[in-house]
């Protein structure tokens, strides 16, 4: 069965993909839909949603257009989600591959290092990192990457451990291929499927983490972010619920879509595993 067919058999995954494509479309169209900066007050504050056509989701405490904030925030959330996941992969994959392939002392040392990072409360570490390095795009991406890599390293290590005993790898050793070449051309390509699945699921957690940071005031002050918008409505919860509701719902929908699509990807890329789960 083809990849696409297997993916589509999981109805949740298709739904997730559709939602995700919509979010991506909104993010791409943001400058066309709302060319003005989402930070600019454009109307009366506290306008209720679904009443004025110009502000379909209402305005916030300062009269900023919530719909505009949402589409601009989608760009930030998706970008930070993807880039920080790439950072986590860039740290986790080499560490895991080195630990799994080298074994012995190197493996022990690297795994203790990984365990250490798994013991630390990751959100607290992310807060401290962003606060100390000052909240800006770079420090946020770095902080999320730094707290998210350990599961990647463990996954890659496990895969490499089982792959390195396979015959074709033994054969590559016998014909005298260099270790880096074996790792890059024989071992790592076979770990790509599980890494892609894990990566797709990590984007959702990264978006949750970013939104939580910006909710606490640790967002980049130049970028409109969903978490910041939720936080901005906190003081007027009862009389202006929509200010906090819509951006939070956007986070929820995006993360749910990513998780659904990620599971579909898992079914499509690891068909044997998927069947075993049924």
């Amino acid at each position: 069965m083809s990849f696409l067919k297997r993916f589509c058999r999981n109805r949740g995954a298709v739904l997730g993909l559709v939602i995700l494509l919509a979010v991506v479309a909104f993010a791409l169209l943001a400058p066309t839909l709302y060319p003005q900066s989402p930070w600019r007050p454009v109307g009366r504050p506290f306008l209720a949603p679904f009443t004025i056509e110009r502000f379909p989701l209402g305005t916030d405490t300062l009269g900023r257009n919530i719909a505009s904030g949402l589409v601009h925030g989608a760009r930030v959330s998706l970008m930070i989600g993807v880039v920080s996941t790439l950072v986590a992969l860039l740290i986790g994959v080499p560490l895991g591959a080195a630990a799994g392939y080298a074994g012995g002392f190197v493996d022990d040392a690297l795994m203790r290092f990984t365990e250490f990072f798994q013991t630390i409360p990751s959100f607290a570490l992310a807060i401290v990192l962003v606060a100390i390095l000052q909240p800006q795009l770079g420090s946020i991406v770095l902080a999320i990457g730094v707290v998210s890599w350990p599961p990647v390293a463990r996954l890659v290590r496990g895969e490499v451990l089982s792959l390195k005993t396979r015959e074709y790898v033994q054969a590559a050793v016998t014909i005298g291929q260099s270790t880096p070449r074996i790792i890059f051309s024989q071992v790592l390509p076979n770990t790509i499927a599980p890494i892609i699945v894990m990566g797709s699921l990590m984007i959702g957690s990264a978006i949750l983490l970013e939104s939580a940071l910006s909710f606490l005031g640790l967002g980049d002050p130049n970028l409109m972010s969903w978490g910041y918008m939720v936080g901005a409505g906190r003081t007027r919860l009862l009389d202006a619920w929509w200010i906090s509701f819509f951006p939070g719902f956007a986070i929820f929908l995006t993360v749910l879509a990513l998780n659904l699509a990620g599971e579909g990807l898992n079914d499509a890329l690891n068909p044997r595993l998927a069947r075993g789960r049924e």
Partner: protein
Amino acid sequence: MNLLQFLSGRLVKGILVLFAIAVLNFFLIRAAPGDPAQVLAGEAGAADAQLLEQLRERFGLNEPITTQLWIYIKGYMSFDLGFSYRQQQPVLTLVLDRLPATLLLTGAAFVISLALGVMMGALAARRAGRWSDSLITGLSLVFYATPLFWIALMSQIVFALKFGLVPNVGYETIGANYTGLARALDIGHHLILPAMTLGLFFTALYARMMRASMLEVAGADFVKTARAKGVSQARVWRRHVARNAILPVVTLAGLQAGQLVGGAVLTETVFAWPGIGRLMFDALVQRDYSVLLGVFFMSSAMVVGFNIITDLVYRIADPRIEAAS
């Protein structure tokens, strides 16, 4: 290996982790833009030239970096986590004052989420493929994707502000001066909403894990044997499947304790719960870095302690682990 040896081994490991975190804090202070003395003083003290000079003297900031590290670590070893110039109190005092509230919140959230998650997961597995399974699986997917701070705010709107079922914020009714049981009940009343929202994500997580674990065990040979012997369905699920399936869930739950502490920062911020998470948020707003790093250290210590307790309980609960090690 007896229990004492095991315990001392784990303690040594825990202390090593805390030592590494102290070293990490040391380098974080140096990673901040600007002078380390200004970081240590926080925004409140950074303008005071005399204070900065004192700090340079005290932490040896004009000495070589190895000496600085040694001075810093020595401070941690004598339980000195620094001083908050904003609050005019040692960081350790601030943190210890707030610790019981956080332990109560995270403990309650842990118990609620583990109990609910295990029950929901077991039910879903038992009815795999039926509508109740789809409902539970769907709900856990939903809660798994819900931002904690948002669901906290939304439940605040619905349950506290709109219907007034539970208090909106805080730890106890201020000015009521309850004592004894009345006070405990009052705190419990305040605890419900924060603990439930903090536990929601973990309930979803444990339900998913429990379901998967149950289905895996249900296919094992010893379960088939039990069925072949004529053990009743209910008994097979309860005694043979659930009992074995719960072990990996509890292990993972113990390892997840760190995330619970992180989530407490968000929950305590929303509900004005006077724990170390709220302290961390206040320190964040006030740019009080000594307190920030102190809370980070203490929350790690909490996780280390919690992991040791989980290991211990686990070892007592499952004798096979002792035999294996």
